């Protein structure tokens, strides 16, 4: 298992990220799951079993998730892309934000893949490549989360 890395400043975080070649990462508020969301009942960010309807292409009955190579959970592959997201979340969360990362080439469930965003450099989607039940996607996202490493805010003000 990878050790949990700690950072005390934004410069520390930048330097750690620079050393992680071929990584994809996402900032996560402390205490939240790295790949699943708290349930939201309505609105644009409504969830189905912890998956936001805006992140994946759902069937009309919301029982299935359909393949789309430009939809999926968001990840950053560059410091430039990660920095503004991290800083924004830290402002709103009082700096209690950690960074979860995984190698792009890491083993993924066979029906999922990291795909680069065609519109924004340094941004990746964790996509589904085959139609699957929502429950299977939840299982897959938990599987990925179990293999992610953490860069933890050491608690100092940024």
């Amino acid at each position: 298992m990878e050790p949990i890395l700690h950072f005390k400043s934004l410069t520390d975080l930048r330097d750690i990220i620079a050393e992680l070649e071929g990584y994809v990462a996402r900032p996560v508020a402390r205490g939240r799951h790295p790949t699943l969301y708290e349930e939201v009942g309505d609105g644009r960010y409504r969830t189905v079993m912890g998956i936001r309807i805006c992140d994946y292409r759902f069937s009309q009955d919301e029982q299935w998730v359909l393949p789309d190579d430009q939809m999926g959970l968001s990840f950053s592959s560059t410091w430039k892309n990660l920095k503004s997201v991290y800083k924004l979340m830290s402002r709103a969360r009082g700096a209690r934000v950690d960074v979860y990362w995984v190698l792009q080439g890491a083993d993924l469930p066979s029906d999922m893949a990291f795909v680069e965003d065609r519109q924004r450099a340094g941004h990746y989607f964790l996509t589904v490549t085959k139609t699957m039940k929502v429950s299977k996607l939840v299982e897959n996202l938990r599987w990925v989360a179990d293999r992610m490493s953490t860069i933890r805010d050491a608690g100092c003000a940024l």
Partner: protein
Amino acid sequence: MLHYAKQLGAQDVERILDAGVDTSADAERLSKFVWTMADQMAVDSRANTPVMGRVDNSDMLPDVDYEVALYLSKRGYGDIWDRVCDES
């Protein structure tokens, strides 16, 4: 963003959200407002004030970052967003 623009009385931001970004001044204002919005989220969260049904809306900020950055980049103002982020 519209909710926070209304909450904070930012009528100029409401106009930008409605009409779009046409000038570098619009891009600067919109970029800075995203950070003001994050600060207001922190205030609301500390006060335990639900906004749009939730006390903590910070997990929508990656979406805001993505959409604003992409939009401003397509309008030719991506450098303004990058600078405001660096300075914020």
